[in-house]
């Protein structure tokens, strides 16, 4: 199984460098880091899943690619859901991808449609935000809903036609405690599992960016931000972590990483 480290922002480059030397952030539980300690990591995921304001600057992307090459790794460039303004920035950043990057992870159907149809060298990967199926980290989903939920992501076989049409070579999933049913086997592409943070939900009304706004903008959609997520996280009700616009639970269970259907395990070093 291929192992990868995931950072979302340029401010986490130091965290990545530490992890490559075997030093992990203290927020990650022992069960998670123990699985990665001493293992050969072959890949880095870089880029934000939920916020177009957190897209990297071209310089940061170049710097990360140099680091990746130095460590003889490969890069998967992660892109968020986005408006047309964000899509334009993503298209510009894609021009800066070097031989270090061989995958584009998309979390927006528009990014998929635009870039899979463009002449881009990188492979297309469906990000975990597009593996849309329910999760409930606070209790048990009752039957018969649980069986449906387990088989829901890309459930109808028509999805195979879509994946093929858009040249998708890999689809990504969360280490949700509900697990995945037999439906996953039919997909016919490689599969990734993300640990330990389980994506739950996203918003554009950022809880961190809004603090610097006034009046009507305070709980609106920010037009820019000062990247407070670089220095602050939010913990909701004790068990959910938020970077302002993306919300994640934590699942350290080894159950799904041992599922042989996943050929890659991605460790988020932070959110």
């Amino acid at each position: 199984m291929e192992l990868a480290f995931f950072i979302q922002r340029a401010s986490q480059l130091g965290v990545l460098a530490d992890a490559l030397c075997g030093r992990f952030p203290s927020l990650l539980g022992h069960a998670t880091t123990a699985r990665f300690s001493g293992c050969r990591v072959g890949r880095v995921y870089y880029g934000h899943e939920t916020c177009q304001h957190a897209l990297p600057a071209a310089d940061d992307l170049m710097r990360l690619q140099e680091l990746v090459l130095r460590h003889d790794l490969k890069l998967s460039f992660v892109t968020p859901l986005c408006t047309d303004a964000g899509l334009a920035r993503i298209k510009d950043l894609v021009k800066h991808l070097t031989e270090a990057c061989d995958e584009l992870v998309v979390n927006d159907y528009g990014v998929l449609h635009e870039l899979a149809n463009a002449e881009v060298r990188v492979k297309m990967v469906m990000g975990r935000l597009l593996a849309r199926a329910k999760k409930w980290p606070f209790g048990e989903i009752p039957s018969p809903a649980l069986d449906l939920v387990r088989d829901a992501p890309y459930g109808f076989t028509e999805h195979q036609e879509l994946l093929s049409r858009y040249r998708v070579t890999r689809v990504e999933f969360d280490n949700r405690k509900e697990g995945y049913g037999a439906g996953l086997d039919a997909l016919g592409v490689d599969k990734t599992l993300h640990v330990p943070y389980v994506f739950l939900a996203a918003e554009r009304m950022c809880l961190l960016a809004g603090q610097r706004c006034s009046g009507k903008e305070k709980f609106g959609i920010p037009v820019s931000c000062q990247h407070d997520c670089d220095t602050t996280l939010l913990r909701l009700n004790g068990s959910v972590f938020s970077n302002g616009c993306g919300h994640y639970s934590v699942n350290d269970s080894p159950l799904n990483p041992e599922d042989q259907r996943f050929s890659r395990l991605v460790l988020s070093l932070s959110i």
Partner: protein
Amino acid sequence: MGVPSSDGSFTVMRIKSPLSSAAEVRPLIAAGADEFYLGYVNAKLNGGGAGCLMNRRSNADANICSREELRLTVALAHDGGRPVFVTFNEHSYAESQRRTVLYLLDDAVAAGADGVIVADPGLMLLIRNNALPLKVTCGVGGGAFNSAAVRFFAALGAFRVVLPREMRTEEIKALSDSERSVEYEVLIMNTRCHFIDSCCNLYHPSPSARFFCRSISLLEPQMPDGGPAGSRLLDLHLREYRHWNKFCPESKHAGKEHCGVCALPELKAAGIAGLKIAGRALPTEQKIRCVTLLRECRDMLSSAADAADYRKRARTRVGSLCGQPYMCYYPDIH
């Protein structure tokens, strides 16, 4: 598809009302509804599971639950010249649901429904591959924030796209201006969820008090390394957030609903074709109040001197129900 006027806007933005029974059709037409949408489940089709996760509100109170009532509802709406759209808006379906979904779709066709509201690209493809005579609307759960996403869904057969709630009005206009292959619809009243619909993977257990979005009350800032963080600015913001989020116990707005009527001038200028009222499970009286309010505000548009004059009059009409700025659907306009 409707024909926009020379300035790109639709002559009249159509009011799309929720329905959950045949008895609601006539009073809602009288109140001003131009279109209807409803949920349809039928537990007789395939055992108890047939009503499970067929749409984003599978509870009986948000759905029409028999073939007979579906037929009657569509017939009554058509008598009044109103189209009916049936919602199949789960983000994704299991393959084991295929047979039930196809039965329900066939029932919708047989009842004469005009179209469906779909969020799952796989289901859109299933409908197209089966050549079902139903117009497809990409629901808010599709998550079409950009023009390329609109083209993605248009390529799968969507004639209309419901835009995500979390867009600024200038973003809506920019998107509508740049991609004109479909009609656009926006949500305008009720249930402005905390999370982006297409990016909310949370299971919604019964009762609704257990929804995660209804239980966010404790927000603790901390450093990325796990230590405590925060500032007075952030503390104040989080405190204010608990009032903004009507589902938090501290909120003073629990009795009010989200509303976007102030943004009608901008939405009309953006060429929006449809104004959707959320809330299939709402009591009939509340649905009628929403449709009436929206129709009256839409009528004010033509007689208002300008957007400021319109907003002043619209806010007077909304009166004490207005929860500005916390309850605004489009707070950039407030």
